[in-house]
């Protein structure tokens, strides 16, 4: 099993969700996060006081899938979340040791 964490532009959530559902990914967790990569935020001015706002609002989409589906899922997210400009976000992949369905004790891939 692999976990895919995608940091995406907030306005891309709907298309990413649709893309994941289209390839049959059932479970998805979304959270509001703030951060920056190389893009480093923007300037805001309030009554002449300048602030560099470098932690920008993003969404983190997490899905856990069977290992062979990694490239398929990454491809779906990339197509759906890409605008081609700075700030589109990043995708991280990591190993998942186990999964448990709380309701009925299903373990491993059966719990996905």
């Amino acid at each position, binding site marked *: 099993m692999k976990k895919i964490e995608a940091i995406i532009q907030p306005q891309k959530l709907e298309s990413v969700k649709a893309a994941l559902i289209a390839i049959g990914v059932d479970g998805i967790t979304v959270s509001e996060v703030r951060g920056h990569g190389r893009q480093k935020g923007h300037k*805001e*001015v*309030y*009554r*002449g*006081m300048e*602030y560099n*706002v470098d932690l920008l609002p993003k969404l983190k989409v997490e899905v856990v899938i069977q290992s062979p589906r990694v490239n398929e899922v990454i491809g779906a997210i990339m197509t759906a979340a890409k605008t081609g400009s700075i700030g589109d976000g990043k995708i991280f992949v990591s190993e998942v040791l186990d999964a448990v369905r709380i309701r009925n004790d299903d373990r491993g891939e059966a719990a996905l």
Partner: protein
Amino acid sequence: MPGRWVLSLTLAIVFAAVTLAQAPAPTTTAATTTAAPAPAAAAAPAIPPDIQKKLDDLDKATKNAQMAGDNSWMLTSSALVLMMTGPGLALFYGGLVRRKNVLGTMMHSFIMMATVSILWAVVGYSLCFAEGSPFIGDFRYVFLHGVGAEPNADYAGTIPQQTWMIYQLMFAIITPALISGAFAERMKFTGMLLFMTLWSLLVYFPMAHMVWGKGGFLSGTLGGVVPAWDFAGGTVVHITSGVSALICALYLGKRTGYPNESMRPHSVVLSVIGACLLWVGWFGFNAGSALNAGPLATSAFVVTHFATAAAVLGWMITEWMMAGKPSVLGAVSGAVAGLVAITPASGFVKPMPAMLIGLLAGIICYLMVSKAKKVFGYDDALDAFGVHGIGGTLGAILTGVFATKEVNDLRMGMPMGMVDGDSGQVVNQLIAVAISWGIAIVATLVILKVCDLIVGVRMDVQQETEGMDISLHGEEGYNLES
């Protein structure tokens, strides 16, 4: 930059319009309402008793009708002015602070609605509006003794004295609340309460008496030594609060971390709502200051609106040209600057000069808060001085320039201001401004020192870091998980 030339052109057109409007024009005068003189009855033949009774009844009915009209407007105005403090100012200031201080900041305004009200009933109204010395009233109205349905003809002959009393209370509430913008995010609650109480007693009540009270030193209409025009509170409300705000900012020192840490407003949305409520409420403040529902109230209403509109554009265009973008916070701050500046002039000037006053206020207040504040380095957190102190001073002086008998003929045909040909009024205004600044500076320093010795005025660093809401009030403004 797009639009720079268009903007410059707009400015030029506005200036031209104002200049043209200064040319003498055959306009209808919006004079104060005056009762028709009673016909002389000396040589008249005796009137039969039944006719006399009908005349008396008619006279009484006319007076009752006028009181009903004036009183309804003045009660409405009183409510409008209260709305300026809460929610108007509470939202305007509350949005400008960091999230952790939103409740404490709103409380600065809200609690004035309670404390000043009690103080007012006990002694405040009497100190302001009882006849006494030129500098302070005596104690004849303490505990509202003798303040009832009968009008007080010295101030407002067609409304109950109680209406006049409650209307004036709303001004006494908002004035100290305005100061809280300067000491935002760092003043102790106990120190704030004591400060506001003493400040009302030593600054607001004497100033209100001097400018508006019978026999007050600066009274324009009730026998002042230096008659100054202040229709709705340029000196009494905005200079006193704005200058005291500067002293508070200097005495308390900067917020911990200022100016290096981010102190962005946590919700400009709240500030926009607050500023719009201030704009609406200000019609009660300025047009209500006519103290009747006649044409002078309309005139004050109209010039207040146009000055504010011009100030919005003045601030926005200046910021657009100097900082690159027309910010929403800038636009609404411009509105407040314009409202402040037109306040003393609102019962004396025509619409075109009002626009000029507003435009200048928008430009100058923007430069004060964005440039001058940086140069001098004081932390007037929410710009109470930059907007109220500077805008109030500008408005008070320009009132002497643009006051005209065509709007308010208080001097029975004699010139009211420089546009009528009397430059002396500008001098009177300058004296009133100087006295207001002087009292505000000296009294505020003394009061802060006293409060500091008794209860302390500044929160400790730990409380400040944690935020006022949790450390002072034990609450949070936004409990998203609940």
